[in-house]
């Protein structure tokens, strides 16, 4: 099954880095969607079938934490696997994010780190 992926990050460079890393994995990819902030991310989740959302935390307009809260409180997206890829270093905030059911990968990441977490996450879902 090809995976539809949404990447939400305000940095176009980081979105490209994440998408290129995804393309280097053996994971079959379907539609790839991009959003620049949490609000656009929620719109993409509402418009498309997304199998995995990769979300940054510090973003303008709506941050990733609020986006995850809203996605979790919407029945259609409550179970969507979410991977947070962020520079966030506060254990307090990371713990809040993990309690909402998201996985966490710290920036800077190696392609192998990102690949391994996504492979694990996708394996649990399928």
């Amino acid at each position, binding site marked *: 099954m090809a995976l539809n992926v949404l990447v939400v990050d305000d*940095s176009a*460079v*980081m979105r490209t880095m994440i998408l290129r890393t995804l393309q280097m994995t053996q994971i079959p990819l379907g539609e790839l969607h991009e959003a620049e902030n949490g609000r656009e991310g929620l719109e993409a989740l509402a418009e498309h079938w997304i199998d995995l959302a990769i979300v940054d935390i510090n973003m*303008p307009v709506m941050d990733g934490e609020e986006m995850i809260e809203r996605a979790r409180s919407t029945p259609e997206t409550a179970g969507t696997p979410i991977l947070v890829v962020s520079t966030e*270093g*506060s254990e*307090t*905030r990371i713990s809040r994010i993990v309690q909402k059911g998201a996985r966490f990968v710290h*920036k800077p990441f190696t392609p192998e780190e990102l690949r391994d977490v996504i492979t694990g996450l996708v394996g649990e879902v399928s």
Partner: protein
Amino acid sequence: MRAEADTIMRVVERTCETLAFMFPMLPDDDPPADEATAAVRVDFSGPVSGYLLVTAPRRMLPALASNMLGLEPDEIAECAGVDALKELGNVICGNLLPALAGPEPVFRMSPPRPCDAPAPPGGAAPVRAWLDEGWVEVAVCPEGGLECLTALAARGEKSADSARTV
């Protein structure tokens, strides 16, 4: 200040290595005063507010973008170099704040923005990391000085010690 400078250097080198495949080199002579540079600024707020300045020579930006995006330098748009420096600044800032202030405080970071590189205010001596493709200079400028950030880490350690004692 030596310990803080070492921490900043360690974070900058690790970030450049992992994010941009640029590796640390032994320090070189100071760059020429007229070398064209680009700088980005990341504002942060929280228990302590302030900003981080990241400066690099313009000649290094195509290689920075090329390494980060996995594209050949001639495939890179000119603006991508500054965008890559902005992301580098963002990741350095996100990793430096907990390295200096400890893992508990929550900081909010603003999106990085290009700026003219002003001399940092007193007390925030920039740290320059030499890399195989050039150099990156980082100045951390918290309101009240660097001590305000490191004091947060000391307070966190003290309260963790008290919790262990109880």
